């Protein structure tokens, strides 16, 4: 990727100023256009065509490995009917986005929304561009557009067999009005979308060519390393930077309320000097917080008679008091860091004319722009954000834009100089927006026939929304804390879900599939209930799901593909789970074995997903694999708190799964074609519960508290 030149910016400004942001109001004669150096034409905001027929598709969402860039390009190209071999992409500019009245829709990249949240308008943009291109050719030939057909970017006039390529008519097309209504292709007829086309970003990635946020390089650029108050909410009390300032390459020590940064001529020099800055912190009110105080906070929450009501159906308490059998269990999970392989990073440049330019790995270019402008105190028009390739995201780089605020603050202390701030792994581990810890108490009532007649869930959990989107909860329940429990597909007559909001001081955030821990709790508990009722876990669930219900469909598909009920080698256990979310339905079957040492091996994970439509089956398979590994990590990872701060600091004490830990992952796609769901997160939803249920099948041990330690499974 190249950083865009000012010329290109000017070109786009010119196009934005005319024709309501859609058309580029100047035409270029064909001869001149064919000549070298003729600029490409923006047919509309999404489609730019070069005279040699290369098509550049603008991508508004971020690419963090999930494959959205390719999938969105496929959708546009499908309707545009261009030659896929000539398709390239570029990220849409957040600054232009604001100036052009948010022409690219949402830039937010989370919640598996990339495709499901923009398929309609990106396909319409491709179709509109195609119609304009055809209209331009028809006008040149002076024939009705209906007599023209398109194939792979070549327009043919049927009766006369004359042909024109997209590159030859793009400029004329751009000056035409955009069609009001466009007809989208029936997915049955897709030629580019729905196919496992190769990802567009991979060839560069194997050469080390993509410019990730950490790779941004600008003339005269300086580097910054940062230390934030180890205790969340604490402040800088005093700074002694004499020794650091004398070190080689050091330019400045920047002190802000809540962080200290060293600016130097290289990152290692900045980081080395930072370790020599003597910083005294004022821990603030949370200096004594620990896992014990957090657990006590949740424990107190479960007993809160005033907990919020997240769901009520029938009379759960009454039904539990008369049930033939009542099963009770408590489940708990720790805080978890996203641990993106690329740490948080932001390069910022406060230019002499006050314009602020930012380069960052962001899941939301628009949010980065807003944060940069707010921090610098300039209008958003006087600010630009360049969206770089992300070394992973998983929710860390979307709603929180802390790294942008810091990057701009540091650049403001070095006016006229671009400064690249990169966090060390230690900072990244200890200053996350963590997957919330939670404690949940579940009670289920079975009647004499073993049917589940009542289910009660009491949830003590922080509100992610309170941290990352203050005010969004509007005083009510945070759905991310109760989902999967409050919206069960199972037909259970009496249900109650209570929510004890307990925020604590550890910042929480959207961590891949926010609320996924409730899937673990629910599906493990349903397994417990099935065993208590003496029923097969699959039959027990199917009995509570109506025929044709979408959770039932994926559950049946996963069970069939995995061979549920067939015999297994000695020592291997099988478990299943079904959870919907992020627009899709997912069911998983896991096969595991536990060694005498207590080491767990997940051998196989079959996951059936119904996402309605499938845009790239191979990318979906990659996401299923990715979700299995992320879910596997989350069984063993934990961020613990002592003296107000996170204890873990790097991968030695927050170990990620390695190549030998990876199970065989089999994705079964069962799209029903009647809706659009995501793939970035659904695959993780049933993973951990399926594994833990398999652990029970293999060992008889019921794991209810994460992280899972070897000792938990060691043979007595």
């Amino acid at each position, binding site marked *: 990727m190249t950083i865009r030149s000012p010329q290109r910016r000017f070109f786009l400004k010119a196009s934005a100023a005319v024709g309501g942001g859609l058309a580029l109001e100047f035409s270029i004669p064909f001869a001149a256009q064919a000549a070298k150096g003729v600029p490409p034409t923006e047919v509309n905001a999404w489609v730019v065509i070069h005279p040699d027929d290369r098509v550049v598709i603008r991508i508004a969402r971020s690419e963090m490995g999930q*494959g959205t860039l390719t999938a969105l390009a496929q959708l546009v190209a499908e309707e545009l009917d261009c030659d896929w071999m000539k398709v390239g992409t570029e990220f849409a500019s957040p600054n232009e986005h604001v100036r052009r009245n948010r022409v690219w829709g949402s830039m937010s990249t989370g919640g598996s929304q990339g495709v499901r949240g923009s398929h309609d308008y990106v396909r319409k943009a491709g179709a509109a561009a195609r119609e304009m291109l055809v209209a331009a050719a028809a006008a040149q030939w002076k024939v009705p557009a209906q007599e023209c057909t398109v194939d792979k970017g070549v327009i043919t006039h049927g009766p006369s067999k004359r042909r024109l390529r997209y590159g030859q008519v793009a400029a004329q097309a751009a000056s035409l009005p955009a069609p009001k209504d466009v007809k989208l292709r029936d997915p049955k007829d897709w030629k580019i979308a729905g196919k496992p086309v190769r990802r567009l970003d991979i060839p560069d990635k194997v050469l080390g060519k993509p410019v990730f946020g950490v790779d941004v390089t600008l003339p005269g650029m300086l580097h910054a390393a940062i230390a934030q108050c180890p205790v969340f909410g604490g402040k800088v009390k005093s700074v002694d930077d004499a020794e650091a300032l004398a070190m080689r390459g050091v330019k400045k020590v920047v002190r802000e309320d809540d962080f200290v940064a060293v600016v130097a001529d290289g990152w290692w020099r900045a980081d080395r000097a930072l370790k020599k800055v003597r910083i005294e912190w004022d821990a603030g009110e949370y200096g004594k917080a620990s896992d014990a105080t957090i657990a006590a906070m949740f424990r107190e929450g479960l007993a809160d008679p005033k907990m919020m009501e997240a769901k009520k159906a029938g009379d759960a308490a009454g039904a539990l008091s008369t049930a033939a059998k009542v099963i009770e269990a408590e489940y708990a999970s720790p805080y978890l860091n996203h641990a993106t392989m690329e740490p948080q990073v932001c390069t910022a440049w406060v230019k002499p004319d006050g314009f602020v330019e930012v380069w960052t790995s962001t899941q939301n270019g628009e949010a980065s722009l807003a944060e940069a402008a707010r921090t610098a105190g300039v209008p958003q028009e006087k600010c630009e954000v360049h969206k770089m390739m992300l*070394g992973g995201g998983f929710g860390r780089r979307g709603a929180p834009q802390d790294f942008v605020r810091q990057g701009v603050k540091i650049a403001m202390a070095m006016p006229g100089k671009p400064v690249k701030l990169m966090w060390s792994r230690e900072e990244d581990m200890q200053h996350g927006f963590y997957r919330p810890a939670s404690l949940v108490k579940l009670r289920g009532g079975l009647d004499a026939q073993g049917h589940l007649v009542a289910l009660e869930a009491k949830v003590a959990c922080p509100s992610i929304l309170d941290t990352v989107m203050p005010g969004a909860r509007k005083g009510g329940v945070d759905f991310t804390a109760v989902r999967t429990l409050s919206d069960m597909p199972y037909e259970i007559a009496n249900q109650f879900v209570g929510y004890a909001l307990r925020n604590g001081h550890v910042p929480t955030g959207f961590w891949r599939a926010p609320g996924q821990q409730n899937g673990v709790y629910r599906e493990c508990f349903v397994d417990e209930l099935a065993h208590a009722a003496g029923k097969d876990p699959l039959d027990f669930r199917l009995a509570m799901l109506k025929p044709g219900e979408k959770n039932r469909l994926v559950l049946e598909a996963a069970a069939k593909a995995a061979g549920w009920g067939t015999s297994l080698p000695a020592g291997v256990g099988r478990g299943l789970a079904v959870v919907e979310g992020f627009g899709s339905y997912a069911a998983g079957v896991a096969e595991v074995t536990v060694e005498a040492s207590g080491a767990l091996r997940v051998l196989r994970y079959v996951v059936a997903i119904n996402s309605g439509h499938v845009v790239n089956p191979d990318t979906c398979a990659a996401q299923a694999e990715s979700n299995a590994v992320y879910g596997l990590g989350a069984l063993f990872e934990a961020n613990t708190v002592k003296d107000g701060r996170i204890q873990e600091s790097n991968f030695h004490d927050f170990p990620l799964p390695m190549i030998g830990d990876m199970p065989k992952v089999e994705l079964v796609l069962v799209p029903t074609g009647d809706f659009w769901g995501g793939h970035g997160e659904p695959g993780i939803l049933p993973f951990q519960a399926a594994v833990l249920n398999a652990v029970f099948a293999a060992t008889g041990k019921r794991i209810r508290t994460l992280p899972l330690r070897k000792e938990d499974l060691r043979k007595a």
Partner: protein
Amino acid sequence: MLKFNVNGRVHSLDVEPEMPLLWVLRDQLGLLGTKYGCGIGQCGSCTVLIDGNAERACLVTAAAAAGRKVVTIEGLSRPGLHRVQKAWIEHEVPQCGYCHTGMIMAAAALLAKKPRPTDADIDEGMTNLCRCGTYARVRKAIHAAAAPVATVTPAAKKG
């Protein structure tokens, strides 16, 4: 002044002897394909070849690297692609791709030592971390690269 031999070119640099090779490459030479992930030898994102061995550039000091033959992703195979890179493309291995320059260097070193690695060899030889969970494809691609000639089909569609 320390002399570095990187990708066949010699550079004389006035750097601190204790500066890790990773930062000599990234900050001094602008070779940005080698990544920082942990700085303590855990993740392997910084893997380069030193005298043919896969090493973690964050743990090797400038003084220790000086005079030895260093190869980074930029110099693994020029012009053209190394068979590991071809296999990586063929099997669509990377997701975010951040870890993969290091993965590819580690795989190239593994194959140089064990032309036909077993799964156990791969488990032992590939200690790089990937948060995106691309491990299954890493394994597949290494086996493919070990096979006689991995051909890359230029077609847009596969399967």
